[in-house]
């Protein structure tokens, strides 16, 4: 297929050279899909280098003044990055060079924050590219939730939430195309004034793992006399830990001797830090008899542990957006135990063989017991095809078509 003549500039608040967290993965996939379809695609981020050490030469780290602001208020780093596009002279200079060089037909703004400075810069430069608003979540309430979790002053939370909501409303009205992860988020943006909307659920890359990495984990578990594993992959995002505690819990008496609950990714930090078997708590004292913390893993090791797992756990109980982990679970072909919340945007998957939907701790635990005992799920041809829908190329199809039409 011939590429369409269009120059796309994608702007974000973190680099995507080494995508690790969900936002990076999504943005990386968006850029890759744009590259498949359009002749010129450039990604530039304005970012705080205290959070990210891997970036491309075109990415723009914050200048000294903005850096200090982030250090004072790390939770609002993305707002500061967005403002820096116009207010930080160093950043503004480099960003203007990128815009002038790329002369974009379309600027894709990932999450609303870059628009804070970009709006003023576009006006100053006197250019009028088409704007695409790439929403990952409805940010206002989510930011408020995160700030509250860190004990931020209530008045400051309200101010920040109002500021972000105003920004989202402004961009929703102004954008020529607004994309969102879920139909629920689309509805919110429509209410904010967005008229041209496209659904772009989170997706995943086709799983790629080496036999070596699978064998590595199988041998490791075999050495501990473990036959089956139920894997929970997640970041050290507080809701992930809260979800695990409320759905699986620390009492693992329902997990049998040769079975293990396995944590992988930075969520392992919580496991290691929070559960000390020498504390005088019966759950803590016995937890590690039936749990295993794999820690933060390289991508090959992570793919290996997913391939070696018998069951994937999605104990997600809060948070907006669609969940990348759910898409990964769907494409893995493994047995899956998930909450309704984790299946948002993938409700159809609940009817697949080898999928248990459970929304209370008791049901979730029973589902894990059943899943361990169940045979490998067999998918029909139609189900196999349907599962492919979670691949990025399919998830972002509507977005690409929308941008083509701009």
């Amino acid at each position, binding site marked *: 297929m011939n590429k369409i003549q269009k120059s796309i500039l994608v702007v974000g608040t973190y680099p995507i050279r080494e995508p690790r967290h969900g936002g990076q993965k999504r943005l990386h996939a968006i850029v890759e899909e744009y590259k498949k379809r359009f002749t010129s695609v450039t990604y530039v981020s304005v970012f705080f280098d205290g959070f990210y050490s891997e970036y491309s030469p075109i990415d723009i780290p914050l200048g000294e003044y903005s850096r200090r602001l982030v250090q004072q208020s790390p939770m609002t780093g993305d707002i500061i990055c967005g403002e820096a596009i116009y207010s930080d002279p160093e950043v503004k200079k480099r960003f203007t060079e990128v815009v002038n060089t790329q002369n974009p037909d379309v600027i894709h703004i990932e999450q609303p924050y870059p628009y804070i400075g970009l709006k003023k810069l576009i006006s100053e430069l006197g250019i009028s590219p088409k704007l695409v608003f790439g929403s990952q979540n409805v940010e206002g309430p989510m930011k408020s939730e995160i700030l509250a979790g860190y004990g931020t002053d209530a008045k400051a939370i309200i101010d920040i939430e109002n500021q972000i909501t105003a920004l989202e409303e402004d961009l929703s009205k102004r954008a020529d195309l607004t994309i969102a992860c879920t139909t629920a988020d689309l509805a919110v943006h429509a209410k904010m004034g967005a008229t041209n909307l496209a659904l772009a659920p989170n997706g995943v890359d086709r799983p790629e793992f080496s036999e070596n990495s699978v064998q590595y984990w199988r041998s490791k578990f075999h050495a501990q*006399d473990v036959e089956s594993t139920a894997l929970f992959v997640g970041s050290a995002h507080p809701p992930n830990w809260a979800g695990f505690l409320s759905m699986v*819990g620390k*009492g*693992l*008496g*329902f997990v*049998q*001797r*040769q079975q293990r609950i396995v944590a992988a990714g930075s969520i392992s930090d919580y496991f290691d830090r929070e559960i000390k*078997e*020498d504390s*005088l708590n*019966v*759950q803590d*004292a*016995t937890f590690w*008899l039936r749990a295993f913390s794999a820690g933060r893993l390289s991508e090959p090791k992570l793919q290996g542990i997913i391939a070696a797992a018998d069951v994937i756990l999605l104990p997600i109980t809060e948070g907006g957006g669609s969940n990348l982990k759910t898409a990964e679970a769907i494409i893995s072909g493994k047995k899956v135990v998930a909450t309704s919340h984790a299946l948002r945007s993938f409700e159809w998957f609940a009817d697949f063989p080898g999928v248990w939907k459970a929304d209370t701790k008791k049901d979730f*635990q029973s589902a894990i017991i059943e899943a361990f005992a169940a045979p490998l799920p067999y998918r029909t041809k139609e189900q196999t095809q349907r599962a492919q829908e979670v691949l990025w190329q399919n998830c972002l199809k509507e977005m690409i078509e929308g941008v083509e039409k701009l």
Partner: protein
Amino acid sequence: MSQNRVLIDLTDIAQWAGHHGGTQRVVYGIAKNYFLDENVSVKFFTYSSHSNEFIEADFKPIFDRVENTVIAAGSRDSVKLSQKLRIKTLILPYVPKAVLRNEELKKKIKSTIRTGIHNARAIKGRIKGVYAQAKSTVVNSEVGRTVIFKENDIVLILGKPWDEPKLQSLLDEKKSQIGFKVVELVYDLIISLYPHLHHPSLFKRYTQQMFKAGQASDLLLSISESSKNDFLKLSNQLELTPPPIDVIRLGDEVEISMSDDDLNAINLSGYGVEEEYLLCVGTVENRKNHALLYYTYKLAHERGITLPQLIIIGGNGWLSDDIQYLIRTDPALKEKIKIFSNINDVTLAALYKRTLFTVYPSFYEGWGLPVAEALAYGKVCVASKYSSIPEVGGDLVTYFSPYSTDECLAAIVKMLNVKNRTALEARISREYKMTTWHDTYTQVKLSLEKL
């Protein structure tokens, strides 16, 4: 007759040459009755941490050793007295009175005797060690083969598997390979559920053992309804589906072959024990709540109530230094409350026999053997109303809250009344039935036959 072969773990007693403690008494009492029952198929084994294997064992040498010791201990010639009593009753009568009148000389003589006893003990300890080693070699070399489990076997764990953390893991592994059944005995959940009442060093190991036993056992035996309920509570906290739990009653038979006259002849006044006294038996530790007795005596003193002397029998336990210090140094009570440890069975029998009644203020018990023992001696007991204690004594015991000096004092005063006490003693004599180890064995056997 049971169709299944029963395999009993003797790890706790096979290599033990000393006096049996509580757990060992249980293992021995049940194993002995299996051993003597010709109608059951039974084998014995021990766990070897050295080779991480289950080794076949012979019960006979253990039986001979224990039964001979009991017989010897029961005979009058070999009555073993405590050190203080021994000095007072056996040695001092042979020391010229003139010497005894000289306090300095008397002290020197006592000190010399004590040093002699100390050295003799050290030698005895070493001999015991060598004997135990030799004996264990005999036990193992007599049989010494790795146990070959069969699918229809029932493996009975009655001891303290938490002392050998790999024992349970090996048992689980064998069970998953072979498919035999496992039955384990739960004593109590004090360490796991009431960690403030026990030294924390065993918390992790013990709790993990309960977790594994709960998962691996086809049946649990519990020594009381209270312990059964606690296990269910623990299971709930651990999200564990517990196996069926049968409650068995432990043996409390009192085996003293000495006559009442002989017991009455033992000189207790040498200890400073008065004619009338109350008795409290049990390790002096935080959980046993001796502090309540101290404060009850203080309260009585404040109210002008005269209580008889209180004799506490028990070794030094965890977190007891403070209360022992109070008792030993309080000018108002130091003669009123006496603590003795290292009391032999015969002296203890004499103390039980001659006490007015016993008191037992423990916060928590898995069973409460001292209550059963008091009743077995026909004595009244006033005791804490919590955990398993009411199961032991039923309505033959007068209860109080272990948190209330008022209630404790009221219960003691009530039983100091001769009429009340003799009426209750008469009921105890009529109604209390000792549980023999054979009774316990019969309950275990019936439970196992249901599997």
